[in-house]
């Protein structure tokens, strides 16, 4: 391999990355809006975050600017922290309700 990674990334036109990331992001948004299981909603949120990571990496490689790629590391670290907290919350709810369906959560209404 005499090519470095940014050059490999640049063999695909930038628009393709943007469309791909937008599609991935939209799938995530649709999943959050339509699914009823808390864990699947949570997975869809992770999909949205990964769409952001793809987009940042592509822009970063095209601009030869490391800022975007460093940002990706921060997103990964924060997403991991969020997973820890989120799964703990879901486990807490499962212990009380024996279920993770968000439709069961309707106590707070006016």
């Amino acid at each position, binding site marked *: 391999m005499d090519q470095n990674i940014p050059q490999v990334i640049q063999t695909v036109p930038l628009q393709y990355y*943007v469309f791909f*990331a937008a599609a991935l*992001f939209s799938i*995530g*948004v649709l999943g*959050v809006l339509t699914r009823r299981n*808390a864990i699947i*909603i*949570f997975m869809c*949120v992770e999909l*949205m*975050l990964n*769409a*952001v990571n793809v*987009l*940042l990496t592509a*822009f970063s490689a095209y*601009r030869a*600017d490391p*800022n*975007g790629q*460093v*940002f990706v590391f*921060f*997103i990964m670290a*924060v997403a991991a*922290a*969020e997973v820890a*907290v*989120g799964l*703990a*919350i*879901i486990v*807490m*709810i499962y212990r*009380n*309700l024996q279920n993770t369906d*968000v439709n069961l*959560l309707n*106590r*707070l*209404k*006016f």
Partner: protein
Amino acid sequence: MNSIILLSVLGLGNLFLGFRRSNRLLLPVMMLILGVVLTVNFIDWNQGAQSFFNGMLTIDNFSVAFTGIVLLTALVLVPFSQKYVLDGEANLAEYYSLLLFSLVGAIMLVSYNHLLMLFLGIEILSVAMYVLAGSDKRNLRSNEAALKYFLMGAFFTGILLFGMALLYGATGTFELSQISAAVQNPVNASLTPMLYIGMLLMLIGIGFKVSAAPFHFWTPDVYEGTPTFFAAFMSTVVKTAGFAAFLKLLVQAFPAASAQGIWLPTLTAMCVLTLLIGNVGAVAQTSIKRMLAYSSISHAGYLLIALVAYNGQLEGASANGILFYSLAYSVATVAAFGVVKLVADARMREDYNGLNGLAKTNPLLAFSLTVSMLSLAGIPLTGGFFGKFFIFSAAVENGYIGLVVFAVVMSMVSIYYYLRPIIAMYMRDAEDETTATPVPVTTFQSGALLLLAALTVLLGVLPGLVAGVL
């Protein structure tokens, strides 16, 4: 910067106090920590702008002032956690440390200069709040609040990040000043649609955090289910820090006329909708906590007016307006939530009738709640009046007369629901045994309530103390 380091270190140290069997030491230590950090924070006052982390954070008067509000709010709020001190089940050391860590996020939000710090600040603030929202582990309402806040928060963080990524693609930088330069002089004209979509997504992401309509729907549910002590923290600290961050973003990254063409109409629409939903929604509530949640939505609407009417500088009338309003709002809201929490803990109910006869049993609580309700309603001689006055006059100067007329009509509506607790306390008699017995109040709590009432009146009589500091 000193306050960030101190809060992190002392927060970690605070965790070790959790090993002691008794919780009694925790509350005084927490107040001591917040008092020390509040004092240390003001060392940086008038020292000029100092940059940290290669210019990613900037500490200047703006950030010191907002950090001061946030820390002061936390300091006067902490005494109301007294119930946890006596509760063997509660992990008080952890709660306090999480509060200290989330304050670090708030400080990053008011002093960021780089979108990475904006993201980290929001996350540090929110992740701690997700945990605290669900801290009442066996209560299904608290569980539900935590899950709703968490899923919605993570979803809107995703939207905010996608906005940042598009913005990065269009401008090639995360630095606020460089974004501003790139927006004025687009690197590549074909990228502008991406720039505008990115900007709008970021507005949505931050609009969610400050509970601006139409992204407010989580607020009433989450505030109602979250333990009252933490709900008070959410509605004051998170909102103050969120609006400071919002103002920084608009003033430092998007001052260009082309960018204003996009965000001004968006924010104006959000502002009108927020005022309408917040005030009309609050009228229909029977639970005081839900009323306070809608009230916090409506105050987000008044603060949005200040963002719309901003005049181009962080030192301008708009920043001062937001600073004064946040302070008056935080002071009044902490007192309101504090009284509601004390009454709800003693009488086990959160509706208006639970307050019946409070003026006879606890004159101090009734007086304190009255002052804070009048301030939230914007009655003269309270801080809330001048908060609204400064924001409205800035908006009129910049030609937003229709918006101000609408906001004034909406604040007349708000008088209806702010007077209801006062009527219950002073005009109605106790219904039964529980409402006839006085609510227990500790010395720290009465001290905090007196301080808050004094501050509210002081801001209403001598607004010049805070009004022109920035």
